[in-house]
């Protein structure tokens, strides 16, 4: 990763110095070693501050809305999974292609500091990934932990190391975490529950929500200029929960609004301060779309129409589709 960081700094400085771009979107060091933050760079001299390591989970693509609306050309470093978000923004006509310079940036999976801490590491000074292992340097010495268990949830479902959009690529592609099994396993487990149990599960899950809107604000598919849930005249504009119904509304409708556009980046669940399992809603829609309307991956390209704005004359009837899937 250090090598890539060096390449990034050089590339960013070069692009800015040439005037090829007005801004570079990358990550900057935070207070600690694990809280790298998204940052804009406008000056080639500042590019030495760019960092890249196993703690750069944020998908930078949504910041393109800011640069694109101001007419600024921006270079953006994109991990393979981040490229899906850019395609989606392009498809939704939210950014201008000519104002984006996409730089594919290799990634081998991002780490979750909470998982490292939970694994028992105290007084952590440094964390480094080496192959399948993570070397954690603590005040009390070094410990080695298996990397697969410390990956962010979203990286466990890695979509692979292909860039779906890139004007250039940095270095060699890295091997990404290999996901074995069924990515819809968790969705299926809920589907198999009896209705009362499902209801209880979602009540418990959604009542954790504090309506901070972080999930919406980070989502590359949530790009409405005025969200229905912010509209002062809307009867559903609840800032706060009075009872779980409001959270159900917010999350069901949000998941519905992004259905067919959700690229499955997993950022919503990652940023949720309350740990709501938001991915389970989005994954359900993805699974249904695949089942009812044929396989589809949002953000895989910038042209294929989303299933919700498309149709076939011989689509299943609503009741048949749903009942058939229920196995009735």
């Amino acid at each position, binding site marked *: 990763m250090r090598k890539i960081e060096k390449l990034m700094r050089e590339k960013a400085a070069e692009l800015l110095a040439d005037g090829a771009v007005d801004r570079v979107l990358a990550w900057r060091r935070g207070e600690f070693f694990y809280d790298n933050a998204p940052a804009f760079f406008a000056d080639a001299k500042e590019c030495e501050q760019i960092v890249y390591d196993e703690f750069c989970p944020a998908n930078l693509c949504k910041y393109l809305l800011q640069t694109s609306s101001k007419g600024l050309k921006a270079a953006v470093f994109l991990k393979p999974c981040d490229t899906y978000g850019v395609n989606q923004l392009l498809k939704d006509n939210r950014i201008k292609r000519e104002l984006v310079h996409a730089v594919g940036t290799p990634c081998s999976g991002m780490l979750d500091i909470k998982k490292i801490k939970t694994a028992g590491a105290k007084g952590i000074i440094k964390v480094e990934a080496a192959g399948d292992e993570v070397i954690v340097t603590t005040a009390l010495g070094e410990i080695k932990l298996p990397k697969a268990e410390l990956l962010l949830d979203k990286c466990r479902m890695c979509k692979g190391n292909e860039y779906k959009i890139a004007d250039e690529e940095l270095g060699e592609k890295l091997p990404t975490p290999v996901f074995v099994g069924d990515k819809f396993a968790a969705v299926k487990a*809920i589907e198999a529950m009896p209705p009362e149990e499902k*209801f209880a599960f*979602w009540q418990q899950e959604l009542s954790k929500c504090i309506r901070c809107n972080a999930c919406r604000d980070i989502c590359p598919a949530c790009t409405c200029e005025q969200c229905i849930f912010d509209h002062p005249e809307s009867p559903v504009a609840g800032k706060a929960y009075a009872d779980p119904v409001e959270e159900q509304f917010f999350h069901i409708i949000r998941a*519905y609004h992004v259905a067919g556009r959700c690229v499955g980046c997993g950022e919503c669940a990652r940023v949720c301060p309350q740990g709501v399992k938001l991915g389970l809603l989005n994954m359900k829609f993805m699974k249904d779309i695949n089942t*009812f309307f044929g396989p589809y991956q949002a953000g895989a390209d910038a042209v294929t129409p989303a299933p*919700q704005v498309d*149709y*076939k004359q011989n689509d299943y009837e609503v009741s048949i589709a749903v009942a058939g899937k229920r196995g009735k």
Partner: protein
Amino acid sequence: MLEQNNTYQPKIVAFCCNWCSYAGADGAGTARKHYPANIKIIKVPCSCRVNPLFILRAFARGADGVILCGCHPGDCHYTTGNYFTRRRMTLLLSMLDYLGVAGDRFRVEWVSAAEGARFAEVMNNFAAHIAALGKNVKLRDLRCAK
């Protein structure tokens, strides 16, 4: 208030498209076909106009069942509106089922302008179905219920 008489009457909201199903309801009336009075019809320009939020709000504000009626696929006044409805509502119904909230209280039916009798039949069936399910207590807004 309905419960006071101890005869439970479910509250049902029916979204009907202007061109087929609403005309179907008219047809049912002209033909003196009876359907329950507790079905409140809301006319929409096209079944495609119905946002999933409408359906959730109907449940939250006290509906025990919601039915959406539009033209038969292929007959949409706007050519393709109901094809989109079909896809959207498939997803919504499946999601309601997934949440364990109201999967069996929501139905989509196609009723043409000529099918007055069918309109009555569909509504009678649905009303009986909802009556058998009883009161909706899950997606209710608790503040309304007070």
